């Protein structure tokens, strides 16, 4: 007989407890939960930052859209993969210019906006 996966009995007990719990803790969602999908006006005032990094043996290009008013409000989107770092950087630059509201880069975020306390 092929070996079977057997969950530890204590872990299974905790799992059942969690299943029981969900009927008392979890609540139905409402329309406001979907605000993320239709409330996208803030994307008009975002700084677009291109990020090239290594991923799965290639160079990945990501674009980060960070609100200029509150940089902690941002989304990251994966754009493409390249085997050559220079081409990836070039692609990132092009995509950033296409996506940004102002190609000149007037919309930007500053580290000061994060209001980090150094104490």
């Amino acid at each position, binding site marked *: *007989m*092929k070996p079977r996966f057997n969950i530890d*009995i204590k872990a*299974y*007990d905790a799992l*059942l407890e969690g*299943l*029981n719990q969900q*009927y*008392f803790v979890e609540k139905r969602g409402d329309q406001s939960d979907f605000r993320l999908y239709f409330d996208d006006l803030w994307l008009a005032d975002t700084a677009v930052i291109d990020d090239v990094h290594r991923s799965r043996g290639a160079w990945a290009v990501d674009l980060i859209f960070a609100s200029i008013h509150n940089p902690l409000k941002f989304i990251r989107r994966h754009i493409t993969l390249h085997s050559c770092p220079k081409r990836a950087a070039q692609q990132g630059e092009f995509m950033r210019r296409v996506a940004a509201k102002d190609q000149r880069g007037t919309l930007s975020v500053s580290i000061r906006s994060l209001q980090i306390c150094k104490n």
Partner: protein
Amino acid sequence: MYNTKIKILNASVRLFNENGIDSVRLQQIADESEMSVGNLAYHYKSKDVLIEAVYERVFDEFNEIFRHYLKRPDLADFDIQISIYYTFFSRNRFYLSEFFKANNSTAPHYLQWQDCTAKMLLQLRSRLQFMVRKNELLPEKEPGQYELLAEQIWMSLVFFIPKSNMIGQHYDEISYKKNIWNLLRPYFGPDGLEEFRALIVPVLF
């Protein structure tokens, strides 16, 4: 799995239920499956391999039942799970004869059975706790009361069919389910009783 293999496994389970695993020969299984012994041996090299395949399917079915835990928060959810338990235990009656053999502790499926039955008991306990929390069952009068009840329900789920066979009593799904609900009935609170009357009584009683 191929249709022929399913056919062989179904025939094996039917014969194991009627005669016990030890007294069934491959020839009988081949006759029951309407094929030659040679063809049977092509799919399963020996009786041991066939038994392993039967047990593998039995444990798959057993584990499948556990997935039906608390899909809905009402009593009908437990009723559905009892129905599935009935189907499983009535279809695989041969397990008991194997389980109560004098020296079966070395059998590879022995631990699997233990694991499955431990899970089953744990689920029943957990379900009773859920019912108490949902005010369907009255709070415990004495500590450990519902643990004992869970064990009683477990015994009824597992041994109701062999018990009925032993005393020559007719059984069906309705009597199996009634037996379980009758164990739970005295512990229902007002909310639970109302739900029981609305969902379970019209179907079973």
